[in-house]
């Protein structure tokens, strides 16, 4: 995941759940297990990711595994970006 994406995803996460403390979230923080993202916040997060990063997340990808932590969300975003604007690898 690119650093730019990492920051955009963190921003989107904090907009979806304003109670998130961004200074305490690292790549592998278990977002679902720690109650930092629930199902409705995931719906909001998807909207945020789509509008800020230009990705299109299909329903088939709206699975808990893809929202476990920032790394998983980053991989999801990478898969769902239009191919011609794929981000550079970290």
């Amino acid at each position: 995941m690119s650093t730019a994406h990492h920051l955009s995803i963190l921003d989107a996460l904090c907009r979806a759940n304003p109670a998130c403390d961004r200074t305490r979230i690292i790549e592998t923080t278990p977002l679902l297990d720690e109650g930092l993202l629930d199902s409705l916040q995931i719906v909001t997060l998807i909207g945020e990711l789509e509008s800020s990063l230009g990705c299109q997340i299909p329903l088939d990808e709206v699975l808990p595994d893809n929202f476990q932590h920032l790394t998983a969300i980053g991989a999801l975003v990478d898969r769902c970006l239009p191919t011609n604007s794929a981000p550079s690898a970290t």
Partner: protein
Amino acid sequence: MIAENRSLPFPHDVVIVGGGPAASFTALFLLQHGIRPLLVERDSFPRFHIGESLTGEVGGILRELGLEADLAARQFPIKHGVTVYGANGINTFWVPVMRRQHDGDLTSTTTWQVRRDEFDQFLLETAVARGATVVKGDADSVLREEGAVCGLRVKTAEGLQEFPCRILVDASGQKTFLANQGVTGPKERGSYEKQVGIFSRVTGAVRDPGEAAGNTLIFYQEKHHWSWFIPLSETETSIGVVVPGEHFSQSGKSTEEFLEWKLRNLNPALTARLQHIEFTEPVRTASNYSYHVRNFTGPGFVCVGDSHRFTDPIFSFGVFFSANEAKMAAAAIRDVLANGTEREADPFAEYEATCDFGQQVIQDVIDFFWEYPLAFQMMAHKSHKGEITDCFAGRVYPAHQPSEAVQTMRRMLARVRTPQPEPVA
């Protein structure tokens, strides 16, 4: 009555097994077509029954039958929608009671929460007041002639009585009378048959304020663990938990202990509302409630409502199917009686296919909700809002389905389902 000058003495063209919603709605719609049925109910009404939250479409059918003022007079709580609480008890999503106007626009409407003892008695009495006859008795067996059903044998206080008829309607609910008789296909297990519902009524539960006081609340804990909160009067609330049967049996608790325990730990938002409750009814259970019956229509017979299928109570579709199928069955019966085709091989084939189709759409929605809760919320709130609302507004039949949303659900469900026969279009 349609059949007056026939040689056989059929005092009633139509005999109905049962006196619940499927039976009474069928009777009320038949009466609108000028057909006066005989209903056979074994219980003395009023009697307790679960299934208290009505969908918007049932509200529409009750209005269509001219019953709105009576329901208002009984002060059944008015339901504007359902609030579903996520597992943390903080986040919620709201499903308003909606209907489609003739121009296709979705508009808010209301329906009722009903005390089924009173509601079922009211419907049955209304059917009688409009011209139906009720016999108290236990449907025992069917009369047959040349492979066709042509009547019902009933155990009454006076002994066994026979009621010949041209068409027998099975509205016996979970008892699946015709399946037990071997007239239809056998009762087959449904996807939720390992679930158990444990429920009672309480006073002192905290409702939402104002207009929202009558709404249904659903509390989600985890896959297949959930609870309902249905206001039934100013003071009483129906409370139930639904969990896998194994979870209940492994707890080692009595039903009473289990219910109280789950109400304390299922969802924090539920617990907060139940701090000062008192139980006003015994704790009851429902298990093995998920099943279906194939070939549920044929020469001289037709099943309506729970007598052929019930999936799961999560979205309160039980009485909806009873009412809607009753309306469709009554229209089909009118035509079959008028054409004299009741002894043909498949007089109700179209009705049967339409019922299966609608029930399958809702089964898909329920399965999808449990298998893909995140994608379900995504669809309900973002990608397919109108189409999901349509399902809840009762647009589940071939004129409107399968929508793109339902097709997507089926595609995703195909990955996790063991192969099933395709629903009949």
